[in-house]
């Protein structure tokens, strides 16, 4: 059966999520960012760490609709950490609070590997540890167009 929504990634087993048929169909052409190169090998891959299924379903659909591949979504630090060790990807979107567990160890690992990432969280800057306070962070709920623009900024080669 074709499953209408992306499934959360599970430990040790990674797969790409099939895009929702026709996407969510509500992207406003005016605020949609330009599509990524549609060549499969040129598609950028985004690690998605988000424990809230409904949020991750919409995020995945938005990313895919804009031409990204999604690695995940992962709902725990451990599962995401496995993916970080074994998979390759271009950038990451990290929810901060994963059912009570904080994502910072994963963020530190990404920083160590030089993989760009942003936080997507309901936390305010004051609740983020000093070392990550200046890091890219979008407040939940994020406007899809703003999120996609932020992801593209992450992927822009730093000069």
């Amino acid at each position, binding site marked *: 059966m074709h499953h209408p*929504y992306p499934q959360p990634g599970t430990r040790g087993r990674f797969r790409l999520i099939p895009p*929702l*048929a*026709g*996407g*969510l*169909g*509500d992207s*406003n052409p005016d605020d949609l960012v330009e599509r990524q190169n549609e060549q499969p090998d040129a598609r950028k891959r985004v690690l998605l760490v988000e424990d*809230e299924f*409904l*949020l991750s*379903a*919409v995020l995945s*659909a938005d990313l895919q609709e804009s031409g990204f591949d999604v690695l995940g979504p992962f709902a725990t630090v451990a599962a995401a950490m496995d993916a970080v060790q074994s998979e390759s990807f271009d950038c990451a979107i990290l929810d901060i*609070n994963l059912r009570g567990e904080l994502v910072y160890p994963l963020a530190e690992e990404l920083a160590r590997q030089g993989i760009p990432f942003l936080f997507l*969280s*309901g*936390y*305010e*800057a*004051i*609740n983020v540890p000093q070392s990550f306070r200046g890091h890219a962070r979008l*407040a*939940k*709920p*994020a*406007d899809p167009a703003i999120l996609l623009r932020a992801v593209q900024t992450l992927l822009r080669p730093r000069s």
Partner: protein
Amino acid sequence: MAQRLAAIVDSSDDAIISKDLNGNIASWNNGARRIFGYEAEEVIGKPVTILIPPDRLDEEPGILARIRAGERIDHYETVRQRKDGSLVDISLTVSPVRDDEGRIVGASKIARDITNRKRMEKHRELLMAELSHRVKNTLAIVISIERLSFSGQQQTSANRAFRARIQALAQAHGRLAEAQWTGVVLQHLVEDELAPYQQKQETNIGLTGPQAVLSPHCALNMVLAIHELATNAAKHGALSSPQGQVIVTWERKNEGLLLEWREEGGPAVSVPQRRGFGRLLLEQALDQELGSNVSMDFRPEGLRCTILIPNQELEAGSD
């Protein structure tokens, strides 16, 4: 009399210490022994700086200078070091001690252990961060549900308007969380809503008014009202044309804070036939929720809307 005073000092839970003008300890009560872990014999005659952690040593010269000038330092919250090296949060009151001729000869220090209070404060902050995080997460889920519910269907402007309203509510919650739920600065709230329409030259939007802090309840209602005004201006009003301007001003009146939203330079305005969500909110919800008096004046040259925010919805910190 002196004996009785000494007994009072000695039975106090607070550390009561006296020092001379060079900062050397002259007396040391039981409370000081309990808080800092030193016996009186160990510290009398020693500089009071033995209680100050290395990174705060610069506090003492300032304190001494103020005492010499006859000033008193009230409930100064700082950190001191115990004998075992551990740190303790204290609230410090320092007053000059004078001799019979009124000359300042030293200082009395009262240090209250505020560890518990600090712990409670941290706990409270943590709970509020959690609350706010949950609220915003839930609002994000509401938006996801809406999108997934209508996925594959033609999206209407109503869908988008719905999401933008939820987004505005979430953003106001973010402002509230930043301020630990004490209130939201009106200017921030208006800026947040108008930011998407700001032109690069910043001439199309003008905000002026004294510092005003809205109660949490008021902020969550006002943000929706301002959101409606802003989106309406962008769709039909002054912000739909490059020459248009929105000017928001507010001033204190006896009855409260009077906010005026004025549009100029946009397309000619006529009274809308339909009473949508925006007018329901502005004309009825604000009145019922806040007791705000709202007037909407659809002048041909531009919408003018005034909202009177009653005094009880304004927090301390407002001018």
